């Protein structure tokens, strides 16, 4: 493994911003972002990803999309299943907690996705423009499957109806913004994109740095929960992303994606949700404890992915595509 790559990733302003956020919390700083700023940054990132993805999608032939899309949905649907059984058997988690954690690892993270785009831009590696489409599509199925598993196995009746959950997920903030802005980017085309690019493209990485600083603040507050979640979950939060990334790389190459596209595909598989899944679990699986699912996804997997994961997956992708 090339430590140069990890080090150079560590020195990007985005990762440093994240680490600053973590440090600030550990120092018990009063630095806090207003909730509204965080929400606004999230809205901005989702719209920016969607618009640019839609615009790029309008440039490439649509035929290239089917295979990776189908494979993404397939793997995205299987991840929660095996994650659930690993968590039940090896991790000894009860049904609601295992399902909630599985939902997070099957779903995807727009923040990790954004960091991957910034990483590839920095490495001047090109990628397919339609990847935001995968991000949009992958958010939902894993959560539904995990909640379905929990409901089939736990008949206490305390979980919300699956239909309701599905409706809420399909109309959730992130789905609406991603899918809607993909469509807008596609319909508005080049001239449309050029009108909004000075706001949604040029400042993207700066805004992402701000966002990751806030993510660091939140992650920092979760770190103290690490001891409570136990070694198993920490190991799970590192091993599963690597596994899913490797799987993702192989499938992506088979689907005909470019190296950059494969890297994004892998990062999506490796990532754990932080918007849609927690929101869904709070309502549909209230017996599951945020201490487990949020700590694993925010304090373990998210930092692992953006700090170590990205350069590792990139090395693996290079290796895979040059052999």
């Amino acid at each position: 493994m090339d430590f140069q790559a990890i080090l150079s990733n560590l020195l990007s302003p985005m990762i440093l911003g994240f680490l600053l956020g973590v440090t600030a919390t550990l120092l018990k700083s009063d630095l806090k972002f207003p909730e509204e700023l965080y929400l606004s940054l999230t809205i901005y990132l989702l719209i920016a990803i969607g618009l640019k993805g839609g615009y790029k999608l309008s440039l490439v032939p649509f035929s290239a999309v089917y295979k990776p899309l189908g494979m993404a949905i397939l793997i995205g649907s299987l991840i929660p299943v095996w994650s659930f059984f690993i968590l039940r058997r090896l991790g000894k988690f009860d049904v609601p907690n295992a399902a909630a954690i599985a939902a997070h690892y099957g779903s995807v993270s727009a923040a990790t996705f954004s960091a991957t785009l910034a990483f590839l831009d920095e490495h001047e590696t090109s990628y397919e423009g339609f990847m935001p489409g995968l991000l949009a599509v992958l958010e939902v199925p894993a959560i539904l499957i995990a909640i379905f598993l929990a409901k089939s196995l736990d008949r206490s009746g305390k979980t919300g109806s699956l239909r309701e959950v599905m409706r809420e997920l399909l109309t959730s903030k992130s789905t609406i913004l991603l899918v809607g802005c993909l469509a807008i980017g596609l319909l508005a085309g080049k001239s449309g994109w050029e009108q909004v690019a000075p706001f949604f493209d040029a400042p993207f990485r700066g805004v992402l740095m701000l966002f990751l600083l806030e993510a660091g603040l939140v992650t920092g507050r979760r770190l103290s929960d690490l001891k409570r979640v136990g070694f198993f979950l920490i190991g799970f939060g590192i091993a599963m992303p690597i596994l899913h990334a490797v799987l993702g790389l192989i499938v992506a190459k088979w689907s005909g994606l470019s190296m950059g596209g494969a890297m994004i595909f892998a990062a999506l598989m490796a990532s754990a949700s932080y918007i849609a899944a927690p929101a869904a679990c709070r309502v549909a699986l209230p017996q599951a404890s945020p201490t487990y699912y949020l700590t694993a996804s925010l304090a373990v997997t998210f930092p692992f992915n953006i700090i170590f994961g990205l350069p590792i997956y990139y090395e693996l992708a290079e290796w895979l595509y040059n052999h």
Partner: protein
Amino acid sequence: MRTFPLKLVTIIADEALERKLVADIKRLGAKGYTVGKAHGEGAKGERISEWEGENLRLETIVSESVAEKILTHLASEYFPNYTIIAYLSDVAVLRGDKFV
């Protein structure tokens, strides 16, 4: 000024429950409600506000019997699983008919 004695039910709960709670208290007879933002700490420890959302503080002025129904419903449907507390207090309102 003639005032009418009624009950104020205050519910502090996870913000994600707003829709559900509002639907439920209306069904049980509340004619209106007021919601503000809050954060706090209880048995489940401090909420990590932004990423999980904050708490809400819902108030509804109702008759004693509706208050009773709301509390009973909360106790059976919400208390076992959700981050929620609720309490009653006595208030005097003008135009009592508006609330019952």
